């Protein structure tokens, strides 16, 4: 779908992005708030859950969920993710397109209003959140964070990052975060919420059937009550690894998880980004990639072995699930494939395949409201450029760019979560 996002500046680092779209069955709203990660880190993890748990008008989850049912099963969500060395707090909502309302309601406007109420009118007394509710939500959020260990791939990934970036804000550990979460209370969280509204870089996306003028007025009304003092979001880029750290930990699991971290050599998130992204794709992206074709298909060592670029921090991570005794074999093959990238010995057809696949999937990004929202949110603190321009940037990447990018990469950390026994008892 071809979209024409309209960016409306509402203040310093506060903007509204409207994407009119009538072909979808839904309308989608997201409010993203970007703040430096180290400030109120623990509180900012709990806040989105507290805000979407209840609010002044909907003082318990049953009341809020009844309201959502009344809005034809609209969804709301609250989340926080690490973005470089910032936290991105996001409240989101999806509702049906107005034309499907049974009684001509303006559902998208009502949903926007609900979401703004959740963000701006929490259950609080002017100094602190409601104690009992806060304690409950804190417990629920703590359990969410603790149960991340259940996902072994994610757990191994997190442990690798914690080791690789141990002296950086990016590497603050889960253990430290849980410790900090324990120390939060209804007053500290309330203060953090106020600061979040003041300090954050804010983007509101409206995708679907919205009356632009009314929506804008409503958003402005809520933000006008905030004394805005946006902070700068910055991330430390370590260009080169000093030496290689090797860490192995054990857990009672069936399959060992190998996670390898590299410094890309990028100086900032936009530094040569398209070349890096394509290099990583040829190396370990789609089924045409070096890692898939060799570590999986040729050597049968694994079911998955893939590489990904984390542009917001300038690191590249490889993940694979293997038998523990195959660790060295896998490492050797991965190193060999990276060497092929560096020497430019990858085939022309791999290069073309990657370019074709990346551009093809980008052309489909705007076929869902989710896709549009995600695309807009990659541009929170920067100008929104059209997708066609991004596609063109990929098309302009040359083999030489790829080789140069591969040569700037340095190995930093090899982490393995080792299964205690090899083989299943069958």
């Amino acid at each position, binding site marked *: 779908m071809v979209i024409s996002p309209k960016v409306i500046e509402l203040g310093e680092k506060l903007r509204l992005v409207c994407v009119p779209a009538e072909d979808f069955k*839904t309308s989608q709203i997201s409010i993203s708030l970007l703040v430096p990660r180290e400030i109120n880190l623990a509180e900012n993890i709990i806040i989105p859950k507290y805000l979407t748990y209840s609010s002044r008008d909907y003082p318990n989850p049953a009341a809020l969920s009844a309201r959502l*049912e009344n809005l034809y099963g609209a969804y709301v969500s609250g989340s926080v993710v690490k973005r470089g060395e910032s936290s991105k707090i996001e409240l989101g909502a999806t509702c049906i397109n107005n034309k499907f309302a049974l009684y001509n309601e303006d559902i998208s406007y009502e949903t926007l209003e609900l979401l703004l109420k959740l963000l701006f009118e929490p259950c609080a007394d002017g100094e602190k959140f409601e104690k009992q509710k806060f304690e*409950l939500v804190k417990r629920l959020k703590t359990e*969410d964070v603790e149960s991340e260990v259940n996902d072994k791939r994610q757990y191994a990934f997190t442990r690798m990052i914690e080791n690789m970036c141990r002296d950086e804000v990016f590497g603050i550990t889960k253990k430290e975060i849980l410790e900090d979460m324990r120390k939060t209370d209804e007053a500290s969280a309330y203060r953090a919420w106020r600061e979040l509204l003041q300090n954050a870089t804010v983007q509101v996306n409206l995708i679907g059937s919205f009356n632009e003028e009314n929506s804008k007025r409503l958003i402005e009304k809520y933000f006008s009550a905030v004394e805005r003092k946006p902070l700068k979001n910055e991330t430390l880029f370590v260009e080169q690894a000093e030496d290689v750290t090797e860490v192995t930990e054990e857990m009672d699991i*069936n399959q060992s998880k190998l996670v390898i971290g590299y410094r890309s050599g990028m100086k900032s998130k936009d530094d040569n980004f398209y070349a890096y992204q394509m290099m990583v794709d040829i190396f370990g992206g789609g*089924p*045409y990639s070096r890692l898939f074709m060799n570590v999986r298909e040729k050597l049968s060592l694994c079911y998955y072995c893939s590489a990904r670029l984390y542009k917001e921090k300038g690191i590249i991570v490889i993940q694979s*699930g293997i038998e523990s005794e195959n660790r060295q074999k896998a490492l050797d093959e991965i190193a060999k494939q990276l060497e092929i990238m560096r020497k430019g010995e990858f085939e022309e057809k791999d290069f073309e395949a990657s370019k074709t696949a990346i551009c093809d999937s980008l052309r489909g990004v705007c076929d869902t409201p989710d896709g549009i929202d995600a695309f807009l949110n990659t541009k929170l603190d920067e100008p929104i450029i059209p997708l066609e321009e991004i596609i063109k940037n990929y098309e302009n990447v040359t083999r030489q760019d790829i080789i140069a990018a591969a040569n700037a990469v340095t190995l930093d950390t090899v982490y393995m979560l080792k299964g205690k026994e090899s083989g*299943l008892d069958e």
Partner: protein
Amino acid sequence: MNNVKEIKSEKLKEKYYEIAHPSGLKIMVYPKENYSSTFVIFGTKYGSIDTQFRLEGESEYTCVPEGIAHFLEHKLFESEELDAFERYAKTGASANAYTSFDRTCYLFSCSKNLEANLEILLDFVTHPYFTEATVEKEQGIIGQEIKMTRDEPAWELLFSLLRAMYKNHPVRIDIAGTVESISHITADLLYKCYNTFYNLSNMAFCVVGNVNPDDVVKVADKALKKQEPVKIERKFFEEPKEVNEEYTELKLPVASPLFALGFKEKVDTPERTNREITQSNIILDVVCGKTSSLYNEMLESGLINTSFDFEYFFGFGYAAAIFTGESDKARQVKEKITDRIKYLQQNGIEREDFERVRRKLYGRAIMAYNDVDEIANNMIASEFAGECVFDDIEILESITLEELNERLVKSIDTECCSLCVINPEGE
């Protein structure tokens, strides 16, 4: 073309075309105006539960190793010359496949080169190539896939619940089988399964997005040869009304205890109708959806947390209401849910609750028509169940409180229930 049927939904403002292709394949083409991409599925009604089958006229059932449908899915990507992934690499499509309990689907999405991609998909799925050497190579890869899923607590929990509920039905076996079971797979067995289930009369082809029916038919005319339809008999496993085990427990490295609770439904016919599915979805939402008093009571008292979820789980010869979550008092959760179901069975669902859930599901039914991927998957599922994907929204309108109350009593027997718990290690 005189074999094209237009299927329309006024309420959804959507339509698609159904084509009875001369080859024997049913083709569905669903154009989405102004979309750039297209999502395509070539599916066969064949999944992990099809472990014993015969063709009409055969006297004996063929019995195959567990996990063979999934293994076959992996192997079909290979051919004597270029494998499917290498061919897609030239066109830029993003391709994949999956195997579930009762279907195997090959899919791709693309925004350019649709015709070339359709050709690749139709070609490789209809041209198997298996040798003993390539079968052996795949055993290593799939062995790692099996081990990976066995490290996923939610997956382990679901299958321990299914094993607890079902004595005989192959829904209790892991979709990918075991490292041991797949070691018995041979090229010959793969051909046997292929020749049975990959007959075009047992398959469906579904194209959603930036497409028009003529484009698809043109490629199909070229790529497909007429096949004589086959009649497959799946073994219907006699399954007692009672569960296999009422309680099971295992230990895994998890943060806190997980539970799965399943009420096994007695099924007289193999498949559930769309109407029954919708009824059950409403019932479960009334019992413990987010607005329900039960959910909120359990959440506030710390019995459950926000990972709590439920689903109506069904397929050929099995159906169950399943509740999952984290709790260190799983038996109490079971008691609460059981009590609530019994209460509603005796006193009936309130009209107000029925109406609010109905309104929500109406919205959700509309939301399901945004995403070409979701539409295509829903269409294939409906097709294999012998129904139309647009029925849901009509059913929601015509459904009555009386039939819900009747179904609530008939479909859930609180005595036929299994509880499975995963405890953290060292406790």
